[in-house]
């Protein structure tokens, strides 16, 4: 119903997105402190290379110096990936051609551009694939009541249909985004491909509202949700995955073709498809998406049909 959509969107401002009970279901109730299997290096390595010596010392000298502490920590705990397993994910003939430092040519997304090397970008040594951000949802408080009718009348790029939805839908061309502007002064901005783009877009919307005669401010800008996607480039047996990871997975082919994997740490929801494409959502920071993918990749490799 329309009212449900209204309150669901407004609730962006109250609760973080995805803050439903489902995510916490397994943390408290089944006594899992996060998924121990995912964090245990020996378990993960046993999935893909059972004959590997688990007692090997981790050699992290290849990591650049300016990576923040926690990323190093994650790289260490996410399976004891060592240098010689860099191209595990690649097929032998591809790795010869690919530059190790280039971000992945992920499957059919040959148009995937290089992700900018900000400090948060993980070193692509474990899977060789970096998920690409597809959508960022952010909210900001303009902190003044707004006359939506007046905005819809004066703005070229605005839609307002109070019978359908109680907000103005406004769009700008660069960055290509959409905003929902509510009469309370709160605003939701969607469609950006990076956090900075989302912030810039939100500022532009705020400027438009200012120019239309409202004393709009720019308070509490917050990224609420980030969506990323990538391709592992091999087909996946979803029926098998749902049996071995029952507590985290839901696979109902009668309802949806993909498997819904609710990862506990980080708290990310992954949609895994038979083609090998993976969608990751529910992140507040991009590092969570990268971490989630590095966690799932060894699991998926275990289901690769040779």
């Amino acid at each position, binding site marked *: 119903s329309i009212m449900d959509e209204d309150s669901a969107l407004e609730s962006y401002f109250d609760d973080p997105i995805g803050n439903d009970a489902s995510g916490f279901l397994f943390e408290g109730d089944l006594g899992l402190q996060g998924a121990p299997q995912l964090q245990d290096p020996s378990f993960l390595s046993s999935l893909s290379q059972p004959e590997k010596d688990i007692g090997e010392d981790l050699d992290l000298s290849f990591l650049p110096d300016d990576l923040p502490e926690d990323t190093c920590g994650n790289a260490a705990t996410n399976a004891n990936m060592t240098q010689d397993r860099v191209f595990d994910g690649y097929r032998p003939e591809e790795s010869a051609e690919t530059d190790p430092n280039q971000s992945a040519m992920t499957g059919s997304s040959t148009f995937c551009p290089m992700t900018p090397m900000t400090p948060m970008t993980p070193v692509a040594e474990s899977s060789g694939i970096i998920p690409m951000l597809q959508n960022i949802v952010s909210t900001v408080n303009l902190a003044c009541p707004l006359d939506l009718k007046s905005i819809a009348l004066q703005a070229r*790029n605005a839609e307002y249909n109070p019978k359908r939805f109680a907000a103005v839908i406004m769009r700008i061309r660069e960055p290509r985004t959409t905003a929902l502007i509510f009469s309370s002064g709160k605003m939701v901005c969607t469609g950006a491909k990076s*956090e900075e783009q989302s*912030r810039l877009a939100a500022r532009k919307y705020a400027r438009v509202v200012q120019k239309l005669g409202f004393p709009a401010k720019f308070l509490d800008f917050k990224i609420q949700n980030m969506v990323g996607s990538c391709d592992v480039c091999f087909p*996946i047996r979803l029926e098998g995955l749902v049996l071995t990871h029952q507590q985290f997975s839901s696979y109902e082919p009668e*309802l949806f073709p993909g498997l819904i994997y609710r990862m506990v740490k980080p708290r990310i929801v992954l949609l895994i*498809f038979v*083609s090998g494409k993976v969608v990751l959502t529910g992140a507040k920071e991009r590092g969570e998406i990268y971490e989630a993918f590095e966690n799932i990749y060894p699991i998926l490799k275990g289901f690769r049909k040779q």
Partner: protein
Amino acid sequence: MATVGLKCPECGSLDIVDDEHYSQPQLVCADCGAVVSEGLLTTTRSEETQGTDVRYSNSTEVDKKPCRNLINGIHRVRALCRILRLTFLMEETAETHFKQAYEHPNFIRVSLQKKEVLAGCCVLATCRQHSWPIAMGTICCLLEANPRLIGVVYQEMVKTLKIEAPPTSIINLLETHCQAYKLSPQHVHEELSESSKDLTKRAAVLLELAADAWLVTGRQPIPILTASIFLAWQSLKPTQTRLKYTLARFCQMAKVTKSSIAPKRVTELKEVLCKLGQELPWLRGDEVTPQTVIQMVDDILNHRLTLLRRALSSHEEALASESPDTGSVQQQGDHSQPSVPNSGKRSLFEPPSVRYAKIRRVQVPVVEVTGDEEISDSEIDSYIRTPQEIRDYVEAKEALASSDDEL
């Protein structure tokens, strides 16, 4: 509260009000105080529960009697269990689930429609826990509800009650599905009849083959079941009569609902069979078409492991011989696309979503921004209407509104 239409017999005033005298309802004249009519001193049981100011669910009664909808729901659960011929233990489990779910805060205030669906979902969860094969589609038919709604309620219920209900594997579904097909000699002509046992056996092998060839994962199970059974039926006695039957006609004959997706699965399955059939040594390289493959299904299935190995090795040989040539990638009738990056290592069988990948919209390269750039006035102005535009818009709207009035 004044009651309209009544007149006091004593003074003739029209001002009659409701009044209660020690919980006995009375109609009293407001002017002279005469009692116009009296209600009953005691109430009936239904009035006590439904005629109160405080809703029963909000009342403080300690031992709440089960509400009507809960009772109806339990009856529905029992009815579903009887229709599906589940065991008594399963019926009890389903009832327990329903009671627990119904009274849980997540469900006590949902719409009646959802509560009805909840009954079916409890039965579904129970079946899964006891490894009783049943498809969600069956529950859909029994409840005559929207599959989406069933999905939503089912997932919510499983989460709330923390049930572990492993989904049914498709092979297990096959047998129950097969039994729905009316193909015994008493239903159809002897030429067209087939025993359920034989049909299930052959269809199971075809289904396994389909699963290996990536035709099953991620797809609706029922169409692929229908397709397997149809091809099993055709291949068990590949006479001209049977081969002339289309899937639609077959479903009509077997008194099974038609599906728009099953024909596609039939085509896909035939393609897989052709790939294997190609490797039969006595054909000596003759081409196998979807039309001719049905007669060979018997042989193909009996020797499928060998044929699979041969097909894989000849596929690899084909790839090896073609990799020096760039640009001409045509293997065994695959629909390859020039821009597919995996073409260097196409496997023999791939999920159709990989083979027929959707052409992607060209991704706009990510522009590096800091988020703190200066925003030019001209850019913002481009999003704001000029006063003339506003005037034009308002006039146009008024013109439209007035023309609507005229109509």
